[in-house]
């Protein structure tokens, strides 16, 4: 963490529109009787880059997994790009093809090459012709700086390369929104930087991003809002400078002192 702490030079230029990308209202979720998410209200505008942090088990992953319906919420509403998330499978598939997601453990498909990983969804979900899908895939693989690995299998790549492939794979679907769930926490420090650089580049292009991460340097440089969660609730949200320099709640102060303290 300390490595990336001071890599931020100047915050990325803000390009936030006032169009709503994601709107979450009064959302609640239970695992059995365990109340994981409580009264979540969150509006994300197009082009906004939000970093979500909080202690382990506070429900960060659950929150962003609810947004593309990997988890089901029981109360409240989630609207993504104007589509209301309901149990209608058509809506769910539509939202999922608009929302890209990167996981902590990459979740690449080990039986397909890098190129096939990237072209699979465009070909089958978007019905893009194979040739075109491959061109797009190469475009994004070049963007994440690994075009030369296209014909290898995920098992032959380093962790950082795999995570960049995962990002490229999501980008190939031309998503309007990207979700990241601790994309760097399974990586060595050296690889963390290459993945963060990719994400910063993405942010600079104005992608709407929701990012669960403990990379505070990244948050300072890229985010235009930091959300702190604890015990399933949004405890505090603010612009990064204010959030880090002047946290309001005790819980946030404690968390920040722990995470930045060493």
């Amino acid at each position, binding site marked *: 963490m300390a490595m990336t702490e001071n890599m931020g030079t100047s915050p990325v230029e803000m390009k936030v529109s006032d169009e709503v990308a994601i709107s979450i209202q009064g959302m609640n979720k239970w695992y059995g009787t365990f109340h994981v998410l409580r009264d979540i209200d969150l509006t994300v505008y197009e082009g906004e880059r939000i970093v979500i942090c909080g202690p382990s088990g506070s429900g960060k992953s659950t929150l962003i997994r609810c947004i*593309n319906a990997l988890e089901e919420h029981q109360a409240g509403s989630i609207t993504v790009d104007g589509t209301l998330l309901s149990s209608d499978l058509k809506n769910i*598939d539509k939202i999922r093809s608009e929302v890209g*997601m990167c996981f902590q453990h990459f979740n690449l*498909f080990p039986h397909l090459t890098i190129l096939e990983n990237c072209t*699979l969804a465009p070909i089958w979900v978007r019905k893009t012709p194979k040739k075109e899908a491959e061109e797009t895939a190469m475009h994004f693989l070049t963007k994440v700086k690994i075009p030369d690995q296209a014909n290898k299998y995920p098992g032959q790549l380093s962790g950082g390369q795999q995570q960049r492939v995962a990002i490229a*794979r*999501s980008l190939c679907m031309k998503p309007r929104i990207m979700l990241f769930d601790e994309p760097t926490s399974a990586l060595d420090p050296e690889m963390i930087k290459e993945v963060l650089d990719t994400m910063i580049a993405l942010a600079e292009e104005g992608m709407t991003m929701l990012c669960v991460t403990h990379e505070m340097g990244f948050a300072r440089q890229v985010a235009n809002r930091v959300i702190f969660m604890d015990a399933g609730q949004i405890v505090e949200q603010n612009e990064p400078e204010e959030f880090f320099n002047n946290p309001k709640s005790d819980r946030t102060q404690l968390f920040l002192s722990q995470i930045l303290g060493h």
Partner: protein
Amino acid sequence: MSDTQQHSVAFVRTEAIPEREPPYTASGPLKWMKDNLFATPFNGILTIVAVYLIYMILSSALPWMLNGIWTTSSLAECRTVLDGAVGACFSVLTERWNQLLFGFKYPSELYWRPGLAFMLLFVAIAPVLFFDLPRKLLIFTGLYPFIAYYLVWGGAIGVPLVALAGCVAGAVFYQSFVARNFALGFLGGVIAAFVTWYIGGLFIPDGANNTAWMRAVPSRDLGGFMLNMMLGVTCVSLSLPLGIALALGRQSSMPLIKVICVVFIEFIRGVPLITLLFVASVMLAYFFPPDSTVDLFLRVVIMITVFSAAYIAEVIRGGLAALPKGQYEGADSLGLDYAQATRLIILPQALKISIPGIVNVAVGLFKDTTLVSVISMFDLVGMIRGPILASTAWNGVYWELLGFAAVLFFVVCYGISQYSQWLERRLATDHR
């Protein structure tokens, strides 16, 4: 600590170490034997015991085999020729060769038909087994069941043609409607196939079999190793898709489908195959309309298929369970629907994990086809136990006949096992 660090610990390498040849390791047969056969006294003893056992087996079997007689016409004649010496009487194989392969009722002038079907089998399964071959060959694979049926059974050509037309109609219907709705496409396809079969059936006149170009051969005339091969190939190729469907059904989130699959699998696995075969030979007829003469071959195929599908389903369920949850989530997050995720992401990986188990079931199934001899079908074992051993000429030649059966089955099963190992290597992409 301090007294060992008399000189400075600081160290800077000034020049890179050049690459060198690997060290010379002693080799040669003596070294190899010492390393591999006599590494410890205990290993040495094991080696000597093993060599002695091999010697015992070969010294008694080799003379018997090398001294074998191939040209007499009965066991008694063999004995006279051998005149007390040790030797096998392989003449039974040469004399009953056709019976062993085709059974004793298949018309001998028609042997070329199953023979040709057998040759074509290799062409048909090649593109399935070796997927680097051009995909166009799969068209022949699709046609093969109908060709093989026509070759083996003969009779009116309308039967395989109508069967083919029904399948094509079903497939076309499915293809054109599945995009709109899977259930509509699937059910519609099934209905389209049945309608085609029904209408087509009306066009096949009664007694068409008697005037056919290819003489009709009834199922009860099939026999010998041909019958084992036919049962084996048909049942393996049917039970794999059925097993996959059952395994997916067992994982289904729809409770009714799940319960049906679980009950089916558990019931079938809890019943011995021999029982199912008896059911096939005497009782299954009750389940079909009274005047329909559902062929015994078909009934046996159903039973063996169902039996091995239950096992394959459990093997594949193991493969599905071994997949990390992240694979499902990865597929979901890209917007793939259930059918796409299953076909493109889940099954390829789950099946790959299940290959050893599936091969196990397939090999077992192939050998289990010999069980049909107890319901008086004359497969290879049935031929040996029945007509051949019971004949006065060959009464008593057990070793030669059963050894021959063993060799035939071994060759096929060993082939399957070798193929599966090749397949596993070919599909290995995890580079651990």
